[in-house]
């Protein structure tokens, strides 16, 4: 009998726990910076709601040109079509590139991509390209049943927040998430739910519901590049318009990543595996519980800024975006480096027939710094603490625009404590008790 070997190789290596002194050191820096900002940072709103930025007309013209956009869109469509072929006709083994493509290239890769290149996912998104193609062929751009402006407003990004939790469940709870049958089901749900919805309700449905696009555009708000402007990410985060439902998206993302770290703790593994109830039950409960915990604490923090309206909540939630990015980098950068390369190798042979289409099949895997735990630990620390520092500064600026002068310090305190909680919680999860 042949061995069942590479059945679940994806994500088979995790980073070593963050050393305890690094956890303590990180926490000390976090506390000092947080209260330092509260005590010594600027006292009146610095940017009073204006994103600012420097125009780069020539670069913008190049990026906005039909050719560039067409090329990026074609690239996205081709990548998804290629991997779709592996999904429907490839082998049900971990060497099938669809697994690495979905869980690593897309889910993890969109974070650095959006951080470096801004809202590029909207152009890359194959569903958008397909929809545009259908409109070109005569489909009404606003769909067959256009929604009213007020309904769009109320929908906001809530459908995408739910879809993100769904993807988090697939990635972290679904026991057979490394089999083709399960992934086929989820891909179908994604295409029908998002593209089908766009056909019925119009293109705007994609911005409301597509989990990958919404994740990408959320991260892109922290980018230097906001076409056609080169901006200060800090300023952009605290002033750019927060889409309705940002708080739910941020909550889902932070909850999913935190739950991923949580499932690695000895306590979680022992408790769930010695329980009489199935692991899927505990996983579902844990994931929803973690998302709920983030949502409730975020609301409590935002409550300090005054009456909790949707608009306030969405604006202040933008300050958690850098923390979300920090968590993602700290948890998944090693995975991206390792499994990202493995996926590149596997992409040359989507059907397991021995092809070498892109000439990558024979490549080796470069481990870069992964055999040096100190460098990994340093990157994790910089990501978590750096995300926190930027987040706290954004929260400070947003608070100043919301709070009356006499409450400008006390009103920020709750949100500050919540953010310290997220960051120190993140450090403890990396320590993996």
């Amino acid at each position: 009998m042949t061995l069942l070997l590479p059945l679940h190789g994806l994500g088979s290596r995790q980073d070593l726990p963050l050393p305890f002194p690094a956890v303590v050191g990180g926490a000390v820096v976090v506390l000092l910076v947080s209260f330092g900002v509260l005590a010594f940072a600027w006292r009146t709103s610095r940017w009073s709601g204006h994103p600012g930025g420097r125009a780069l007309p020539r670069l913008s013209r190049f990026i906005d040109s039909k050719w560039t956009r067409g090329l990026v869109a074609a690239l996205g469509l081709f990548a998804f079509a290629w991997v779709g072929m592996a999904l429907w006709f490839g082998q049900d083994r971990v060497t099938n590139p669809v697994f690495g493509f979905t869980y690593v290239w897309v889910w993890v890769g969109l974070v650095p991509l959006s951080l470096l290149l801004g809202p590029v996912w909207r152009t890359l998104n194959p569903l958008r390209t397909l929809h545009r193609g259908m409109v070109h062929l005569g489909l009404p751009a606003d769909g067959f049943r256009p929604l009213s402006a007020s309904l769009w407003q109320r929908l906001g990004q809530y459908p995408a927040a739910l879809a993100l939790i769904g993807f988090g469940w697939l990635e972290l709870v679904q026991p057979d998430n490394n089999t083709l049958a399960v992934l086929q089901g989820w891909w179908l749900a994604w295409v029908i739910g998002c593209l089908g919805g766009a056909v019925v309700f119009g293109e705007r449905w994609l911005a409301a519901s597509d989990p990958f696009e919404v994740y990408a555009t959320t991260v892109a708000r922290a980018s230097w590049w906001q076409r056609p402007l080169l901006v200060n990410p800090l300023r952009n985060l605290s002033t750019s318009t927060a889409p309705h439902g940002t708080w739910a998206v941020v909550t889902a993302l932070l909850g999913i990543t935190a739950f991923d770290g949580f499932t690695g703790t000895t306590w979680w593994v022992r408790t769930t595996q010695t329980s009489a109830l199935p692991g899927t039950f505990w996983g579902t409960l844990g994931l929803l519980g973690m998302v709920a915990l983030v949502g409730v604490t975020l609301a409590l923090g935002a409550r300090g800024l005054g009456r909790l309206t949707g608009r306030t909540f969405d604006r202040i939630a933008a300050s958690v975006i850098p923390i979300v990015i920090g968590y993602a980098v700290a948890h998944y950068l090693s995975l991206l480096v390792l499994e990202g390369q493995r996926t590149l190798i596997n992409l040359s042979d989507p059907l397991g027939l021995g092809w070498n289409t892109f000439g990558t099949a024979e490549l080796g895997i470069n481990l870069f710094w992964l055999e040096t735990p100190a460098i990994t630990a340093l990157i994790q620390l910089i990501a978590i603490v750096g995300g926190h520092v930027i987040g706290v500064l954004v929260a400070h600026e947003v608070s100043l625009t919301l709070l009356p002068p006499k409450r400008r310090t006390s009103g920020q305190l709750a949100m500050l404590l919540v953010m310290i909680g997220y960051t120190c919680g993140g450090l403890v999860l990396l320590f993996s008790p």
Partner: protein
Amino acid sequence: MKRLLVTWLALVLLSGCAAGASSTSAPPPPKQVTITLADGKAEPIAEKVELVKGQHLVLTITSDRADAVHVHGFDVEIEVKAGETVTRDLVMDKVGRFEVESHEPVFTLLQLQIQ
């Protein structure tokens, strides 16, 4: 046999040099870990095993059912038959955190932490 020994020593020295000054000393003696799968349960569950790169891990697995123990990241699958004991010697030549799992049912037995 002698030739094998010399080759092995040379390899150890080479890998020691390649790993840099901090690990010129030979890795610590092999780590012995016993795993018992009985009555639909497993022992241990999620035990942390700290190792140094290059160290040997010797797994002794006893099971009352046919099962397979999977060492993640090393692509090693150890099959055990009902009522038998299997011993496997593995070289821990990677850095990171890796799980050792049983399959029927799934238990996370060990968490290897290799420095």
